[in-house]
Each structure stands twice: as C-alpha cells, then as structure tokens.
C-alpha cells in the first residue's frame, strides 16, 4: 500500500492565518483591530501580555498586598501611571475621601484631567455610566466590597463597547480579606513595594530616596500566563522602568 503523505495544499496556508484570527476574535482574548494595546515599554512585561500590552477595551483589576491592601497606595499610583499615557479625561470613582490629587500629578496623571465622583455604594453604577461615555481615557473605581462575576462581566462588556479602559482598585476594609474570587477581568495585578536602590547608583553612600521599586504580580491573565516582574515605579510621565541590575542582565524570572 502506498503511503499517502498529506501536506496541506499551498492555497490553504493563508486560510490558517485568517482562521487563527477568527478564533481569537471569538475568544475575545485579542484586542480589537484599530485599538492597539497599551504597552508598558518593558519588553519582558509586554511580551507576556496578549497583544503586547494592556487591552484598552477591557476590565483590569489591581490591588495591593499585605499592609497596603487597605490603602492601595502603590496600586493607585500604578493605575494613575497607566491612564496618564492615554489621551482624554479620566473618571475616578471614590468611596473614601483619602485620595490626594497632587499624588496623581506625580504619577503623570494631571489632576485637571480627572473628574472625581464620590459614589458610596453606587460605585459600580457610576463606573458603568462612565464606561458608556466614549472619549474617556479610562475609569478607575475604588471598590471595597466584593465584585461578582456578573457585575464584572457587565463592566467588561461596557468597556469593550466603547474602548474606555476600566480599572478596578480593590481595597477591602480589613487587611485580612484579600479578594480572590473569579471575575471577568482581562488581567489581575498585585502591586507591592520593594526596597529601592540608592539615589545615585555611582555613589551609594549619598542618602536620599531613589526611584520607588515595585513587584508586579500578574495573578490572572486571559490569553496569557501569570508572571512576576520587579520594576521601577511610575515616573513623572507614568512610565515604568526596568530595575537597573536587570536591565543589563538575563531576563527577570517569571513565576
């Protein structure tokens, strides 16, 4: 019996590419064409995210760790740095009155761009209202309560419809209640502080505060794999940086 060697005909090869794109579109894991993902500018980080960056038309969750869980200060700065690099006004929905506007400015998000809304228990409604308004750079919600799968799906769909980025900052009231339920968010980040390096790399004896360092844990990612990166925190334009020792050395370890 002769062996039949099957090889796809030449004409079928372009079909594979379009088939892949079709599957990706159905799975909704890749960003819409025409809406490029927001990259961090760090190839190691961008490479792990589908589309080479944060999906702009999606819901993302950010939270702090340990003692910073209630205050979510680093997480708030991280969120501000992301939205600083997108054009347009930002809606920031608050529950507690402890956000300091000049702090946003130091992360690159100019306070003149931000509309604040004190929504109390109506935070999710206010966020949805903001997500339906095309033209915003993004909406940030500081949420202390639970985020159900249904609610998160609504927010994700609203973000997809208009291309407004949705960021939920989880900050529970008590330090022990780390949120870990399933939600429809495209990514879930955990930001914790790391000891920073010396102020002047070439003169370690000089006292002072260098650039802040964070450990970014990507806990969940749709269409990608979890990972952990040590980066330098947002500068005045909202860009993250690679820790100098690793910038020249081998890749940062992925979890």
């Amino acid at each position, binding site marked *: 019996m002769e062996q039949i060697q099957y090889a796809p005909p030449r004409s079928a090869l372009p079909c594979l590419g379009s088939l892949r794109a079709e599957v990706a579109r159905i799975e909704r894991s890749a960003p819409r064409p025409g809406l490029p993902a927001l990259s961090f500018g760090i190839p190691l980080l961008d490479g792990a995210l589908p589309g080479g960056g944060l999906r702009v038309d999606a819901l993302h969750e950010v939270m702090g760790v340990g003692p910073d869980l209630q205050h979510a200060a680093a997480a708030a700065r991280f969120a501000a740095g992301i939205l600083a690099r997108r054009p347009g*006004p930002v809606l920031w929905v608050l529950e507690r009155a402890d956000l300091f506007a000049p702090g946003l400015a130091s992360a690159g998000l100019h306070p003149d761009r931000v509309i604040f809304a004190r929504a109390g228990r109506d935070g999710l409604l206010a966020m949805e209202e903001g997500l339906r*308004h095309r033209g*915003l750079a993004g909406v940030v919600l500081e949420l202390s309560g639970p985020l159900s799968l249904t609610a998160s799906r609504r927010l994700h769909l609203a973000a997809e419809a208009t291309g407004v980025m949705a960021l939920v900052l989880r900050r529970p009231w008590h330090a022990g209640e780390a949120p870990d339920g399933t939600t429809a968010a495209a990514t879930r980040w955990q930001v914790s502080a790391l000891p920073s390096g010396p102020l002047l790399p070439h003169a370690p004896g000089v006292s002072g505060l260098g650039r802040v360092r964070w450990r970014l844990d990507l806990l969940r990612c749709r269409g990608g794999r979890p990972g952990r990166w040590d980066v330098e925190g947002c500068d005045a334009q909202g860009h993250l940086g690679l820790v100098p020792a690793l910038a020249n050395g081998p890749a940062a370890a992925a979890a």
Partner: protein
Amino acid sequence: MALGLRPGMALAHATALVPGLVVLDGQPGADADALRRLAAWCHRYAPLTAPDPPDGVWLDVTGCAHLFRGEAALLDALAERFMRDGLHVRSAIADTPGAAHAVARHRAKPPGAQDAAAPAGADRAAAPPSRDGTVVPPGAHRDALAPLPIVALRLAAELVSTLRRLGLERVAHLERLPRAALVRRFGPQVALRLDQAHGRVHEPILPLVPEELLQHRVTFLEPLLTAEALSVAVQHLVAPLCARMEGAGLGARRLDLLFERVDGGVQAIRIGTGRPSRDAKHLSRMLEERLEEVDPGLGVEAMRLVIPLAEPLGWRQDAAGPATPDVSALVDRLSNRLGAAQVFRAEPVESDVPERSVRLVPALARHGGIGWPSRWPAPVRLLHPPQPVEALAALPDSAPAAFTWRRHRHRIRHADGPERIHAEWWVRDKEMWAVRDYFRVEDGDGARFWLFRRGDGVDPATGALEWFLHGLF
C-alpha cells in the same frame, strides 16, 4: 407685632394703642395675585407649587432635596432668599400637605408663613436641623401634630370656637375621640382634615404652571401603567420640545416632567443639566433614569414636560480637528444620580499646608488659573486627620530611625527631608509659630510614608515634637 397689635383686633383699639398708625385698605384681589406670582417664583425650588391662601405657598419637594444637599438646606436657602427681599417666612417640610401647613404656622418659630410638603414615599434621610424651618422626619408627622392647636387643621372659625368651648384644644384630643361620634356631632369636615393631616386621605396639590414657560403636554386615550409605556411617552414629549428650543436658540438647564394621574394627583420629577442642552437623546435618557421614582397609581392620563429654566445655546460648529471630548453629558448623568455635590474636580489652592492645598470645585467649572505647584513628589493617599505615630529621631534635622504605627514597627532604611512648612498664621492664631518638618521615608520592605514632626526642635513654641503620619506613597 412688637407694638401689641394682633390680627382680628378692632381698628379703633389698634389706633388707640398706637397713635399715628397708618391705615391702608386691604386688597384681597391684589394679595391673591401677588401670592400666585410668589408661587410661580418658587418654581425654581420645586416643580409643583401652588398658592395656599391667604398667606402661604405649597411646594412639593419630593425628589428635589438632593439637589440642595438636603431638606434642611433647602429650607435655609428659601428663607435666606426671601430675607433678601425683606420677607420673613416660616417653613416646614412634612409627609403630608396638612401636616406641613400646621407645623409651619403653629410651631414656636419666627413669624411668616410658607410651607412645603413631601408626600409619603419620598426618599428622605435624616438631615441636620434647619435654622429657620422645621423638618418633620418621615413618619413622625403624628407626633409633630399632636401638641398643635386645632386651628392648625384649617377648620372654620365657628367650628374651632365650638370645639374649644368643649375643651378640645389640641389635635391630640381630637385624634383620641371615636371617629363616628366626631362626624355625627361636628360634621365631616373635622374628620376629613384630620385624615388629610395624618396622611390617611390623599390631598393633591393642584400645581400652578406659569404659562410663559416652554412646555408640551400629551394626553393618552388609555391611562398608562408600565414603565416602558412611560418611557415611550417621554421620548414623544422630548422630541418636539427640543425642536422648539432649536428654533428659539435655547438650551434647557432644568426640566420638569409632570404626571397627571387618573385620581387627580400630580407627580413630578425634575432633572438639571450643568450646561444648556437640547440633545433629545441625552435629556430623555436622564428622564428615563428617574422614571422608577414615579408611582402611577391607577394610571397616568396625561404628561406635561415643562422647561422652567432655559439659557441661550447657539449653533454648534463642528471643530476642524479632534476636539476634547465633551464630558458635560457624563457629569450631568452622574450629578442627577449621585447629587451635584458628589461630582467634582480638584483645584490647587495657594497654601503650603497639604490638607489645605487642594480645593474641590464643581466638575464643569472653569479652571481657576492657578497651576499645580511642582514640589516634592506628593503621596497618593492623604490621611484625615494625620495619625500620631511614635518615632525615634535625632534632633534637629534627622529623619527617624524607626517609627511605630498601629502597633507595627517600621525600621527606616532611606529617608529624604526635612521639608519645612510654616503654618498659616492668618488662618488661625494657634498656628502663629507652628512649623512642620516633613520627611519621606522608606522602611525595610520598601513601603514609603510621609511623616512630619511638629516643631523645629530648637524653639519649643514651634511645636511639641510630636510625630504624625500624613500620607502613603
């Protein structure tokens, strides 16, 4: 009143008490007209107003209180506005018109007369007391009515004197009597007024809608009951009015939607916009969001959309390039849902003291022109009030070596500072010499804190060297 004169006194008696008294003939017709105009003027506070002759005005403030930050604030605003014209008013908010009328006139308060009623079903939270008016908490109108004299129930004069002769002085006495005996002896009037005041019988306020306002009314062949039907009707009302506004070059700043029910009652919802708008989609969307507050009762037989406040809105030219997106629609929707005070922007204030360096302004206000100062990096979280911590530091300029906050000890690895801030002696005398030395510190785990010490360590008048945590980076 201070001269000892009372209404109902004989003229001869009055002139005897006060020689040189100027006497003018009363003009009830002119007074009634003036009262109607006053009721029409009060339209800016509530969508449904009506005169309450001879000396009062009803306002139905259901659902309007949040636009004024609370019912007490609404009464204060009203009283203040009337005071500017020299009118003293006495006001009250209660669940029923009868109760509001009674409490406004017969509580021990400064003279005048004006009352406001928010019928049962309104969403009213506990509020701080008003200076000039009385707010009767929801459901507490029974207790509020009990000690009032029976004159407060709007009964005829002969009936009042008959009741008083029999020893019935207060509303509580009347309430205690059996209903059948009351009706048999005194007629149905007493029982009706009692029921109206307590809310057992609905008393509709017939609203006065000034003719000159832009309005459109639609009647239905069959009374509408469902929310979907009402929202379709809303769109039919909004579209022609927006067309008329376009023709007149106006935009609406405030809209009232009145629902006329089959049983004669009228309900209203009011929305406001930050900038004049005649966008039919935006306006009907905001009205539809409030539809669930309306109780259609047995059916709504007509709806009227009134525009009490309109401002000129010229033709808008599409800009040649990408314009900054217009957020006024978003701000309107959020303000109508959460209250106008809850949506704001931050503006810098020229002050070194961090907690005073930011001011909250309405979201659509123009920028004040002061730029944000570029100083040291500011923390993202600011604690109100600054939390006391225990810290160990060498005076006068060193950062602490460690500090304890909430029983957790943080050893400090890196620090920056001090940044000295002098207090503002023009704000408070206590701050004459006070200084704060701010330090940005990082502990062993990398977390960063904003600490300050009161006092410069050299002069005890500048502060007692206590340490506080003010912010988190």
